[in-house]
């Protein structure tokens, strides 16, 4: 049996031959965090009494949602056949919104544990991450987790895994992160199977940044994997993408608490602190070298995060605008993928147009803003970035429907994605119907096993950002999973649908849709608003229009009675309080022309039924 390492290898003086860098690839909830916890415990890195579930998921939201947003790296000692090894476990985010971060984490490793829930089987995101791992030439160790569950089907899924990565079902390890069964064997297997890192210790230093986290006390903490050469304390370092130099204030390893070290050598994984305050100065994917002996060639693979989904964020209370601005500024320090600029809406006041990696990123950001800064926010319907070529050949990029030019458009291009959907084969028809209705083009279909199928579609991003995933889930009774990545763009026949209240356009409700769907949007939105806007003293027509052409209309009948019939001695206090409340309510109304629209109507109109269900959190 493999004992806990008695003497842990010392950072900066560790022979690459005893280093193993690995990560865990898993679909959400398949047990990555739990397994990581168990490893920390077994190797003695975290004492039993310090153990709290999902030790590595640090942010509150991560803990609550049970997902890993920011990756972390932990150095753990493990002894096999009398040799003490140094394992670096890099925890990667599991969600497709963070694909780029995943790919950088993978690039810091030589191997990956492919962790699959033995009761669920492979999911689309696992496949996507597995694909990234193979692209990075990682050695894959297939593992089935949760074998303690009565509903586990280890044989079935072992065959599925073997089929996928080309091995034998018997080679698939069986573990339970919950009970700890098989975890020691897995650690042994990591040492035996994964290749040690190789690099030139004498070359100029090159270390790849795979994560960058803002910490209130210490500023930005940068996580790196050293490829060549070494880094040592009090050295001036340089970012190769910008040539910016920083003083190295602290260098160390996480085990898992940050522990300063004498440096980091070839193959080692650790953290750097330079005193910078903004993660943009220390970007994921960039190469760190030393100022005095700089490398000439960066490690490559660096790319700026590209926002895919845009939404307007507005404070419910206009007076909170400065709070929102400061909050976004702060959040940006920790989120290199977040972009925003101020915008204003006639209906919603002052706010920001914010770009996100995807819908989850949007939701998490919004939730963090609301929770950590005590804000109430309205977010407008998410949309994508369109490239509009005008007749005079000028090109504009539209991320907000209200900027969509009227007339004189030569061509509009919309971003596309290639999507992979995994589901039990009985749902193939339902899934195809959904994708077809979202203007998808079938790319191919493969059976992973007898009853599970992988379907590939190319779809407009705009068609999946709103409610696609929720509908997919309901059409597949929860079994369907989705992964997508950007896949160029295409020319599309798009129009802007405006919503008018009593003839006044309400910018917050405008949408860019495919021409074939404009009518449906118009009918949906006018219908929704008719139910949400209270009756006024006059009739209020609600119209949906493309340019000057009305495509749908509804109307709110004038209110005829608004008076309390009885008002005697005992009713006076009660009635006065009611009036005072109504007066307060009036302050929360937004005026669109003469029409009083309650804030709630905006929120409700801009929320899908699915996401409003989510909002019924504590």
């Amino acid at each position, binding site marked *: 049996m493999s004992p806990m390492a008695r003497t842990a290898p010392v950072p900066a003086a560790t022979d690459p031959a005893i280093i193993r860098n690995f990560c865990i690839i898993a679909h959400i909830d398949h047990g990555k965090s739990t397994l990581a916890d168990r490893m920390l415990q077994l190797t003695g890195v975290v004492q039993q009494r310090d153990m709290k579930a999902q030790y590595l998921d640090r942010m509150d939201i991560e803990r609550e949602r049970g997902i890993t947003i920011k990756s972390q790296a932990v150095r753990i000692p493990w002894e096999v056949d009398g040799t003490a090894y140094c394992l670096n476990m890099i925890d990667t985010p599991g969600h497709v919104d963070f694909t780029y971060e995943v790919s950088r984490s993978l690039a810091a490793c030589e191997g990956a544990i492919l962790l699959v829930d033995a009761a669920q089987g492979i999911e689309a995101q696992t496949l996507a991450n597995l694909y990234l791992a193979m692209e990075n030439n990682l050695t894959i160790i297939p593992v089935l987790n949760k074998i303690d569950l009565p509903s586990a089907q280890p044989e079935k899924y072992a065959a599925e895994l073997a089929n996928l990565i080309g091995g034998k079902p018997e080679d698939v390890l069986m573990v339970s992160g919950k009970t700890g069964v098989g975890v020691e064997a897995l650690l042994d297997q990591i040492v035996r199977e994964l290749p040690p890192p190789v690099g030139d210790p004498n070359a100029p230093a090159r270390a790849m940044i795979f994560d960058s986290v803002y910490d209130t006390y210490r500023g930005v903490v940068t996580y790196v994997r050293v490829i060549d050469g070494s880094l040592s304390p009090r050295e001036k370092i340089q970012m190769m993408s910008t040539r910016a130099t920083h003083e190295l204030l602290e260098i160390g390893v996480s085990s898992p608490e940050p522990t300063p070290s004498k440096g980091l050598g070839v193959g080692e994984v650790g953290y750097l602190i330079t005193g910078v305050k903004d993660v943009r100065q220390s970007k994921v994917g960039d190469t760190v070298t030393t100022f005095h002996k700089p490398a000439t060639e960066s490690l490559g693979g660096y790319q700026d995060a590209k926002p895919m989904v845009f939404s307007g964020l507005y404070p419910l209370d206009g007076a909170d605008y400065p709070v929102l601005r400061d909050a976004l500024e702060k959040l940006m320090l920790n989120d290199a993928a977040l972009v925003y600029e101020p915008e204003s809406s006639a209906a919603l006041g002052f706010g920001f147009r914010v770009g996100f990696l995807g819908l989850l990123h949007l939701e998490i950001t919004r939730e963090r803003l609301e929770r950590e800064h005590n804000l109430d926010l309205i977010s407008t319907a998410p949309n994508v970035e369109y490239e509009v070529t005008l007749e005079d050949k000028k090109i504009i990029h539209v991320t907000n429907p209200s900027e969509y030019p009227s007339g004189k458009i030569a061509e509009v291009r919309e971003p596309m994605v290639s999507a992979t959907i995994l589901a039990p084969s009985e749902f193939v028809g339902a899934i195809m119907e959904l994708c077809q209705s979202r203007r998808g083009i079938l790319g191919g279909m493969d059976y992973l096993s007898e009853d599970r199928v992988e379907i590939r579609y190319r779809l407009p991003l705009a068609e999946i950002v709103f409610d696609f995933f929720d509908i997919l889930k309901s059409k597949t009774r929860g079994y369907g999973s989705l992964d997508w990545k950007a896949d160029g763009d295409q020319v599309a026949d798009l129009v802007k649908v405006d919503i008018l209240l009593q003839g006044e356009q309400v910018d917050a409700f405008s949408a860019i849709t495919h021409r074939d769907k404009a009518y449906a949007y118009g009918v949906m939105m006018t219908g929704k608003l008719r139910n949400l806007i209270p009756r006024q*003293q006059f009739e209020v027509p609600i119209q949906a229009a493309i340019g000057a052409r009305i495509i749908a209309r509804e109307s709110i009948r004038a209110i005829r009675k*608004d*008076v309390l*019939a009885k*008002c005697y*001695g005992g009713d006076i206090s009660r009635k006065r309080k009611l*009036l005072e409340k109504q007066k307060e309510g009036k302050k929360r109304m937004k005026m669109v022309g003469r029409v009083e629209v309650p804030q709630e109507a905006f929120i409700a109109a801009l929320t899908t039924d699915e996401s409003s269900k989510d909002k019924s959190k504590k």
Partner: protein
Amino acid sequence: MTPSVLPLGDPAPADGILPAQAAVGAASRKFSLYAHIPFCAVRCGYCDFNTYTATELGGGASQDAYASTAVREVEFAARAMTASGLPQRKLSTVFFGGGTPTLLPAGDLTRILGAAVEQWGIEEGAEVTTEANPDSVTLESLQELHDGGFTRVSFGMQSAVSHVLKVLDRTHKPERVPQAVAWAREVGLNVSVDLIYGTPGESLADWETSVRTALSYEPDHISAYSLIVEEGTKLAAQIRRGQVPNIDDDDHAVKYELADALFQAGGLSWYEVSNWSRTPADACQHNLAYWHGDDWWGIGPGAHSHMGGVRWWNVKHPTAYANRLDKGESPAAGRETLDADTRELERIMLVSRLSEGLSIDTLGPAGRHAVAGLIAEGLIEPLKAFAGTLVLTLKGRLLGDAVTRALLP
């Protein structure tokens, strides 16, 4: 009438002493008495007044002792007012409401009235009203009330249509109303009838029948209320469960317009949103006191009182009420002392409901600023506004709360 849900307010002291504000300017304000009688034979499904059936009270004991308890509050009130520095004022109006006051023997009612008159005296020709259910009076009881000082009776007719009365859970037969009205006339009482419109299942024709029938009794006064679905009532539960269709504001509006037209043709003019009278003198003086912000003491469980911008209300349950008075303590459950802005808000809210109207000069800048808009919307009478008074139009009466909101700063 006292609603069953009490407001949230400040605590009220046991000695009943009022804040100093209550006495300021009291000499120039009229003083009225309201007496609440919290008993009914059965509880109507729509009603949320503070009233109890004999079964709910577990026997008739408290009904028998009620007049004595009420008299005790009359005496308590007189002492507390004097101790609070209020001047001695004669009663300007008296109103017995419920519940069903006429469920008590007429002698109980006249005894309470007598005690009040003994304490304060009463103005010459003062209006003294009692509410009554049509099936809880006889010629004799009405005679006794008249002889004991009552001048006016207000009958809960509600509707002339049996199936509507049934939805309202009313126990009386429609034929009973003309009988009761005739008796009241005979003994020399001024007569009013209450109607309710917009009951689920009531057609426009049903409502027209009720209005015409009420007019055929030639009352001096009619109150017509749109049915209010009060929280916690049986009716509210029936609507929630879908057993009875919901009420509809548009239906109410049409019925209000119809009633107003028929009342006018029948010789009654509106003087408050829900009240019509044959002559200005037939308007209910007691209710006008409420709308004018005059002073009144309300005796009885859950009764509300008002004195110079101080409002208070009694504990709701008859037993708790009696216990307080037995101990010589004020039965008040809570009170509020209104600041100048709140009093002004109440004034606008109440006086704007009256046909006499609100003097535009007395309004603040925000209110005066709103006047032109209200004319434009057809909510107030333009000619009256030119002459300096804000008076609701028919449309404005139906949108009275919107008018009030528009006038508030």
